[in-house]
């Protein structure tokens, strides 16, 4: 599991400060986190292509938002994951809208680019769980994604969501309950 607490072989703070004005300094930060964000996005979307889209959007937003980044709330890593969860929420909203329109038209046309290819699955993937997670409200999705799929500690996840540890624990607990209900609903419907 990806950990943010691993020792980092470079001075992240210094790079972040330099990257505020020099995009070239952003590259080491990008290289450090790209695989983690990509894996996080893949677990959440179940698609390599979507994971690449989310990863791209996350780092582009991060680079754009870097001048406004402050060191409060967990540092660069949690901040990056927070952006990723926002991008993922946007992604799921767009996806839901697209599916809905298709349903109304009764013309179920799945663009070939969206079909999961052979590389879109990985060992241990749990599409049922992912679908149920996608039906939760965005705050619950964000909490569970950060806590379990990104593997952040409670304090890091709380920092990423901008709340206290205690609040985060409550949100996670309620989100788990909501997810359980969704899974039970799906099991009944199946």
């Amino acid at each position, binding site marked *: 599991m990806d950990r943010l607490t691993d020792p980092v072989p470079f001075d992240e703070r210094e790079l972040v400060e330099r990257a505020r004005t020099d995009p070239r300094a952003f590259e080491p930060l*990008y290289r450090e986190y790209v*695989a983690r964000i990509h894996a996080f996005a893949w677990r959440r979307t179940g698609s390599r292509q979507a994971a690449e889209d989310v990863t791209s959007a996350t780092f582009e937003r991060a680079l754009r938002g870097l001048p406004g980044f402050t060191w409060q709330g967990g540092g660069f890593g949690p901040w990056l994951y927070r952006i990723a969860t926002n991008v993922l929420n946007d992604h799921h909203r767009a996806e839901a809208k697209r599916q809905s329109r298709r349903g109304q038209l009764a013309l179920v046309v799945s663009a070939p680019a969206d079909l999961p290819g052979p590389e879109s699955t990985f060992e241990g993937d749990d599409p049922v769980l992912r679908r149920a997670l996608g039906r939760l409200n965005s705050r619950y999705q964000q909490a569970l994604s950060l806590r379990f799929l990104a593997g952040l500690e409670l304090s890091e996840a709380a920092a990423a969501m901008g709340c206290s540890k205690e609040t985060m624990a409550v949100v996670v607990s309620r989100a788990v309950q909501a997810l359980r209900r969704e899974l039970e609903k799906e099991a009944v419907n199946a």
Partner: protein
Amino acid sequence: MLDHDVEQRLAALGGRRPPAPRGRFVDELGERLVSGSPVPSRRRRVSRLLSPVLSAAAAVLITVLVMSGHDDGAQTVQMFQTAGSVEVVLPDGSVVPGVAGMTVPDGSLIRVRGAGHAVVDGVIVGPGEEAEVVGGDVQPTGVPEPTTTVAPPTTAAAPPTTAAPVSTPPSAAARPTTTAAPTTTTTTAPSTTTTPPREVQPMRLQARYNDRGQVVLRWSGYTGPPAEFGSYVVLRAPAPNRPDRPGENGTRIVGRATDQQRLFGVDSPPPDMRPVYRVVALDPSNRRVIASTFAVQPDGAQTSTQSGPTESQPATTSARTQTFSSPAPSGYSQPPTPTAPRSPSAVR
């Protein structure tokens, strides 16, 4: 089901490690971030270019065609969309119809007949074009030459006095070009048949090795109207040749970009080659609009360039000599001695 079970499932999913991101994706995104030139992602690019109708037509074609026999672990690319007549020449010489969803193995040639098109791994192969799959990259190989794509003499090449047959419906093969449009307005004033001057700035090109032994290319871009832009094509030839036309003097297409704002690319030339590059802007009909200066990339030394005007429109699109001086332009580090590239990477 207990909450604990749900947590365990979440933890199990979080503990799984999906495949690492593709090296090409990581490199391209890194270049893009550092250069500060955002490029639409593949999905957005494809969806913008293809209408829902084409998507529907392509989806109908998804149904079958399993090519597992050709997938033996070598690099492959995915064909996302097709329309019209698309065929794939497989490495063993057999020809199969190109359909959306199929996996195209390395060494294949993709041909688009007539007015069709194919989208392969995010690269659009347009009408009449060909592309080959090399090292997991899709490399367009067939760019129709201007002389072979113009309309018959009675239409596009007609003198002003022949503007009368304006009612002749244009055929698919004789798509009107941007320079022929004014001929349809009058039969009396010969001056109306001249090409309106373009506000096009010369294109400049820089080439430099990065620390991974790849050549990073940056060009100044096509400044004409977006409607007259089709794509950038990056040509490479071994020095001392100058890249001009694909197939001549060792010139080959190493990359293509259909976004007018895409102003960079990365190429991995053979380690023993001293490459010379040129970027050509094509219009939507694949006619050459403007060509960049040549960018010579000597063995690990600074870049130098020579001018290279286009033949088609020398008056307005001639290139300008540019010499890069030391220190290097911003955004580039001093080029190290080139090392063997990790993987071929064409401009996309």
